[in-house]
């Protein structure tokens, strides 16, 4: 009898563990709570201000803001296989809000950042977001919402009439209109084309695919296969990597035996580093060239992959697509100063901090926060239902608008009642009717120290040639 009870208990526990494994990035069965982090706000008087109004005249004085703090929530994975994404966005949030607060804040309010861990899983993300709305005072903007959870949380956030800048390339957002949804990154299918274009540029003809089994990674596969076919390349094998598995030896062997010129991959967490190491072992100590997505441009990815195969080997064999971002000029100067001032202060940010200067989330969410903050000033309100339309106006500009490159200078122009067009380190913004604004791609590589180098650019014509 006792044995039977224990057998049932074990089965229940195994089931619970398996469910946790398959539906969550970590083993926890508890819904994830929102986790406040130390905020870079300079003051926090007052109690709550979910929304407030004011005049643009008082927008940005350069004096320390004394109003109640406004919160920017970083809704992203902070644990599980995609745990590197959350800290990347948080670094951007810390940098942007510190610069904004130093310039007087928004309508007298300082900005703070808050992390909301989705664990990269919709099942954890929705309760986490609901809890965020229930427990966060002064919530003014949401950033993050990656492909892991965007499909489930974007409608929830939109229903709460909260503006969001999402880091998702999912194609469903290309044609579904959410009034509060904004995106400064391209659809995944364009990134798939960019990866194939890199392969073309490097004269590879035989390609193996190895993508994680998460939503965010799986969306790359079909467009990549179609683009490979259009480019006349050979798909040698298509391996799906279970992000919870601990080894991929058989998958690595299948890749090695298919003799590809290069591997296109996105499998974050421990998966890609493990795969690379096993491919090296099974390929006589040689790594097969790798083409990654822009998500691989992060210090955490470099650190893990470099530990697995060696920094020099990774640097010599790795390329990734990335959106073109500024590397000089006034926008970059303001951005790099703001971000690098946060070095050592961002929870969870490890590795070479300068990589964040090229990380898509680091650059584009910095721009998103500035756009939202400036829209608040322009509209004189911190209520997203009021300021949201001004994000478009400031991003796309209007005829005769003054181009400005940092929050401080743009806020100053607004104070002088000038029409502005914000152009940040992510380059010019052009929102379409679905609030999508995408740029053009570049090819990034790593140096052995983890610094990101631009190895070339991809033209729009190159991508068009691979599409549909």
């Amino acid at each position, binding site marked *: 009898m006792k044995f039977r009870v224990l057998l049932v208990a074990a089965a229940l526990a195994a089931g619970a563990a398996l469910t946790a494994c398959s539906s969550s990035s970590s083993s926890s069965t508890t819904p994830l709570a929102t986790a406040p982090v130390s905020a870079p706000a300079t003051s926090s008087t007052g109690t709550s201000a979910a929304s407030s109004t004011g005049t643009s005249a008082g927008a940005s004085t350069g004096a320390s803001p004394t109003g109640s703090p406004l919160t920017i929530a970083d809704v992203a994975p902070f644990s599980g296989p995609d745990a590197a994404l959350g800290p990347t966005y948080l670094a951007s949030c810390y940098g942007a809000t510190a610069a904004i607060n130093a310039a007087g804040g928004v309508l007298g309010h300082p900005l703070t950042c808050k992390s909301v861990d989705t664990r990269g899983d919709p099942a954890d993300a929705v309760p986490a977001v609901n809890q965020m709305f229930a427990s966060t005072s002064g919530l003014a903007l949401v950033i993050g919402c990656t492909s892991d959870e965007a499909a489930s949380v974007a409608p929830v956030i939109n229903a709460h009439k909260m503006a969001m800048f999402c880091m998702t390339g999912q194609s469903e957002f290309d044609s579904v209109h959410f009034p509060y949804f904004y995106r400064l990154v391209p659809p995944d299918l364009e990134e798939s084309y960019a990866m194939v274009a890199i392969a073309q540029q490097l004269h590879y003809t035989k390609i193996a695919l190895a993508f994680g089994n998460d939503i965010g990674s799986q969306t790359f596969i079909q467009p990549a296969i179609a683009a490979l076919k259009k480019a006349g390349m050979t798909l040698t094998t298509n391996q799906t990597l279970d992000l919870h598995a601990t080894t991929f030896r058989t998958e690595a062997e299948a890749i090695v035996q298919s003799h590809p010129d290069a591997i296109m991959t996105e499998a974050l967490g421990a998966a890609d580093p493990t795969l690379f190491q096993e491919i090296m072992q099974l390929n006589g100590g040689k790594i097969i060239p790798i083409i990654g997505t822009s998500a691989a441009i992060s210090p955490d990815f470099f650190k893990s992959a470099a530990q*697995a195969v060696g920094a020099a080997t990774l640097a010599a064999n790795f390329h990734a697509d990335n959106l073109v971002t500024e590397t000089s000029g006034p926008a970059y100067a303001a951005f790099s100063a703001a971000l690098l001032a946060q070095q050592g202060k961002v929870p969870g940010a490890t590795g070479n901090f300068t990589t964040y200067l090229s990380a898509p989330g680091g650059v584009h969410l910095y721009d998103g926060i500035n756009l939202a903050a400036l829209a608040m000033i322009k509209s004189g309100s911190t209520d997203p239902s009021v300021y949201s339309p001004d994000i478009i106006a400031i991003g796309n500009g209007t005829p005769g608008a003054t181009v400005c490159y940092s929050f401080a200078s743009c806020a100053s122009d607004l104070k002088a009642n000038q029409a502005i067009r914000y152009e940040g380190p992510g380059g010019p913004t052009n929102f379409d009717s679905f609030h999508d604004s995408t740029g053009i791609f570049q090819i990034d590589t790593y140096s052995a120290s983890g610094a990101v180098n631009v190895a070339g650019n991809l033209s729009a014509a190159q991508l068009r040639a691979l599409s549909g």
Partner: protein
Amino acid sequence: MTLFLASVGFGLVTASVLAIAAIGFTLQFGVTDVLNLAYGAVMIAGAFLAYVLNQAGLNVWLGLVVAVIVCSVGSVLLNAGVYAPFQRRGASPITMVIVSLGMTLIIEFGVQAIAGGTSVSYTMTQGPSVTADGLVLSTVQLVVIGLSLLVMAGTHVLLRYTRLGKAMRATAANKSLARNCGIRTARVIAITWAVTGGLCGLAGVVFAMDAGSFDATSTDLFLVLILAATFLGGPGQAYGAMLGAVVIGLATEVSAAYITPSYKYVFPFVALLVMLGVRPAGLLGERA
């Protein structure tokens, strides 16, 4: 054929890591009556301890020894501080499972809070590879297989030829009767926690070596494989765990070679369910 041989080789490595873990897990369960689901969390804690020492400049094999010792002591303390008090109060087996699940979260998130969410790797060389047709195994993998064989042989000697082993088997079979026969069951249980805790630490480090890159949640799925190997062989049966580990390890890798790799864990579990339907007590029957 080449891919088949390769997958068999990989399956043997997976089975070796799994066997070390499953032997410790099933012995622990058989003797102590605690289905310790925190076993995977203790494994990863041991793996991270070896990582910290490795990053401080210590050879990873020395780190392994330290992890074995610390996990052994830690497991004894885990029992003394958490499980034993609940058992003394007559907690049901289901309650103990819930308690161990709680400990899993506490330990795992504790490790994550300290180590962070990113994956890490040991600084070590895999050594030259041995190749035979499709079979490619690194020196480290061969050492892992050797360690596993050593653990299996050691367990056999312990259980069959030592007084402690006999006392463990007697305690596992019937605690009250063993106590009435003069066996100090409390001491046997404490030693079992120490021995199986050491095996847990060993399993954690070889698991991390084998995985190449690991994070605080890496053993989540592996714990399910441990449970599968344990129940396939028969819970509480050390030899059953060895057999179960080989079956699960080989089935996982061979199925990955011929079925889509995303379903490589499905096939072994289908086999497990079928087997449990036929023999609910596992391949090697009732507990010893």
